[in-house]
């Protein structure tokens, strides 16, 4: 109950935020990305945090949503919301196919298989014609119920709704039989099986929930950006960012993914726009024309995954329960 109330308050505050910001496309865009990463990592956490099954291929489900929406909208006049549902269907099919095969096996096969499946999806999309191949898909303007989807606020609220759904589901799972069963599987599969838990079935259930939510986020993202290609929505880099955000925030917790996204998305944005390099140069720490200065200018923009990686290693070493774990130490 306390958790439900906290989520509701968070939702309310987040809903009021755009009114505070006013017309600021850059900041709104950043917030949308934060909400998106928080949703994605929360959805990943249902499988990774509860069931302990680390997916390294969640981009496949994100891409399933994004591509299904874009392919349908670029060909037919359909309600965009219907394409979101279709995306869920495609994502769930990929999830079921993966899950039924891999979850019968013990050990870390799922982590490996998730990468393989995501790569198969990516390469297929790259090579098929109807997916736009390497060119990707560009979409002309769309409207939904008369709302012009050119403005950013609808997407801010769309992403917020998906995040809130994911958080509510997580809070519910924490107190439900399914959630407890998933945690039992994470802790000890033999003990779980001996207590009557159908391991493959519950893992599949977690994967389906996770994939469906991830796919919705992908569909929304596609509608928001209106141009997708494989490097934008199906890349391994995205899968890794989803995991790292969850790990850095705190795996298996309700707010870890949100916290991770709040920290990492702005950090990545700073690195991408070279704020850090500029600061070092402007502050006089490094001369602009020196080798180091040039190197930083060239490369720092691409360094955010590396920086995520370093932070993750530090987290695993010093904060095994993520940043949220810091606050729970005393318990």
């Amino acid at each position, binding site marked *: 109950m306390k958790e439900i109330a906290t989520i509701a308050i968070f939702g309310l505050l987040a809903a009021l935020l755009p009114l505070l910001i006013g017309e600021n496309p850059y900041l709104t865009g950043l917030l949308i990305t934060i909400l998106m990463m928080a949703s994605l990592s929360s959805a990943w956490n249902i499988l990774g945090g509860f069931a302990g099954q680390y997916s390294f291929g969640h981009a496949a489900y994100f891409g399933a949503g994004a591509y299904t929406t874009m392919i349908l909208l670029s060909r037919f006049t359909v309600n965009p919301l219907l394409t979101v549902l279709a995306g869920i269907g495609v994502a769930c099919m990929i999830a079921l196919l993966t899950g039924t095969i891999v979850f019968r096996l013990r050990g870390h096969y799922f982590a490996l298989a998730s990468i393989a499946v995501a790569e198969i999806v990516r390469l297929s999309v790259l090579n098929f014609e109807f997916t736009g191949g390497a060119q990707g898909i560009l979409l002309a303007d769309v409207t939904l119920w008369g709302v012009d989807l050119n403005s950013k606020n609808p997407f801010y609220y769309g992403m917020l709704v998906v995040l809130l759904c994911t958080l509510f589901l997580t809070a519910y799972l924490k*107190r*439900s*039989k399914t959630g*407890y*069963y998933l*945690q*039992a599987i994470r*802790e*000890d599969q*033999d*003990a*779980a*099986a*001996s*207590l*009557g*838990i*159908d*391991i493959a079935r519950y893992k599949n259930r977690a994967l389906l929930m996770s994939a469906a939510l991830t796919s919705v986020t992908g569909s929304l993202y596609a509608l928001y950006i209106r141009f997708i290609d494989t490097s934008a929505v199906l890349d391994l880099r995205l899968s890794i960012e989803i995991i790292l955000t969850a790990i850095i925030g705190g795996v298996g917790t309700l707010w870890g993914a949100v916290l991770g996204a709040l920290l990492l998305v702005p950090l990545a944005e700073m690195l991408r726009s070279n704020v850090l390099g500029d600061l070092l140069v402007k502050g006089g720490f490094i001369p602009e024309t020196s080798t180091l200065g040039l190197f930083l200018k060239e490369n720092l923009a691409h360094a955010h995954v590396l920086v995520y990686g370093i932070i993750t290693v530090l987290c695993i070493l010093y904060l095994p329960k993520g940043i949220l774990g810091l606050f729970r130490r005393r318990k």
Partner: protein
Amino acid sequence: MIQHILHITHVSKHFGGNVAVSDVSFSVDEKEIFGLIGPNGAGKTTLFNCMTGFFPVTSGDIIFDSKKINTLRPDQICRLGMVRTWQRVKPLGSLTVLENVMIGAFSITNATGEANIMAMEQLHAVGLSDYATKPAGSLPIGLKKKLELARVLASRPKMLLLDEICGGLNHTETDSILAIIRAVRNSGTTIVFIEHDMKAVTSICDRIVVLNSGEKLAEGTPEEITTNPAVIAAYLGGGHHA
């Protein structure tokens, strides 16, 4: 009339060339406390693993409650009402003691509140109430054994397979576990009991099967077993005699 609830018929289990269980047969009656004893490596735990679906048998059949169960998965067997504890305890370490027992209770209810109540009852029964909110992984071994017991009891099994549930416990703790086991039997549960402590076995079991090197060496009442020359030679001879 005596009802057999479990039939083990000509069960063998080979690991490559290693014969862990060899052509073992016996039957367990309803509401019986049935002892399974034998020296280290005799095949007791392996037999439990076969009975609960963790290992496929090499040959033979296991019939529980008139159903052939040797091709079922562990979770299916549990839901039929045959539940085991682990010799090497398997607490769900980062969950609380209460949550561990709730997971046992979830096999008979879907409601979290109800599972919570059932779990508290079982914690009380084994004397773990004070530890309800502690992480299960933090308990000392003796209490982990009690947790194993509370967790399976919460699923209200028809048949309980206990693998050295008293191992590592002191006399008072062993006595309290034995009292719980008797009470569970009186409430209608059948029990198969693996134990090295001969005093515990002979004091609680109605009948006993002795395994030695995977083979059934003897079967009978505690008196028959403790006076059986073959058993004494193979098993009790090593200074174990009560």
